[in-house]
């Protein structure tokens, strides 16, 4: 059984993933630096986020080499967070609309950030 000797893998794969994480992080920083907006921005942020998270879990945390039973037990439950996100998104827009209806639009004038 593989897990009896622990997770032993050639070093090369760690170096490759390490470099890849650097590159993808650099890309996600560029999204902000180049000031991309709208769907391009959100799409790229989510894409790079999931790529990074996936490689960390699969390779660095060795999930790729674990048995399916452990994979399912750990990776399936977080899927249900999507339900919470969906419910809270509905609730959030409702709260905003209610606030605008009763208190009116915001009159706040934000200050400039000084450095």
């Amino acid at each position, binding site marked *: 059984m593989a897990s009896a000797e622990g997770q*032993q893998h050639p070093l090369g794969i760690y170096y490759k993933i390490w470099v890849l994480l650097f590159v993808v992080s650099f890309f996600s920083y560029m999204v902000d630096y180049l000031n991309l907006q709208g769907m391009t921005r959100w799409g790229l942020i989510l894409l790079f986020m999931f790529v990074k998270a996936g490689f960390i879990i699969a390779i660095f*945390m060795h999930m790729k080499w674990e048995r399916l039973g452990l994979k399912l037990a750990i990776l399936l439950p977080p899927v249900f967070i999507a339900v919470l996100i969906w419910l809270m998104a509905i609730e959030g827009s409702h*709260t905003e609309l209610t606030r605008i209806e009763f208190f009116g639009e915001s009159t706040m004038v934000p200050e400039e950030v000084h450095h």
Partner: protein
Amino acid sequence: MSDAATMDGLPGGTKGVVTDFSADRQAFHVPWGKAMMWIFLLSDTFIFSCFLVGYMHVRMAATDPWPFPSEVFALSFGGDPIPLILIAIMTFILITSSGTMALAVNMGYRKNKKATFWLMVATAILGASFVGMQAFEWTKLIVDEGVRPWGNPFGAAQFGSSFFMITGFHGMHVSAGVIYLLVVANRVRNGFYEQRGDNYEIVEIAGLYWHFVDLVWVFIFAFFYLW
């Protein structure tokens, strides 16, 4: 008729509960410490998710404009402010520490005590420098910019509470991780695990925690700083 409460050969009542739960059955074919660390990390996933979903909710519900993180977290080194530069450096430090941790786990299984120890110490130092930068970031935000959990000059009041709650909880995890890593590294060095003969799997378990801290940062970076 067979009654489930008093099955043949098995005690019933509270004694039965103990028998059932201590039955020698194994679901996950990994060391128990690793299974428990994964289950802990799963519960931690839900805690951080709740924080991030809470942040999403207050950001959606706020009628005041949300402060633009790219500007709030910009830093000037004498010239024009560079957007998010400190956060980018912190991100790269955490990724570097994840790499050194992965190598430490690998060296542990190769029974290379010295390399494992030093790689874990390097990981801990990188983690500590991350916390140091976070302390600098907090100080700048609180003292110079006047950001408070109940309000700030740049927009919606909820910005401060979300920020301090989420990054504070993450920073606490990093700090705990630094201590955890140093304790395990010291035991690797003084031969504690060698004497017990347990194959340095503890290094991998500590590594799981550390990679998780990096993983959470990936989500915080995307949703709080970049969004």
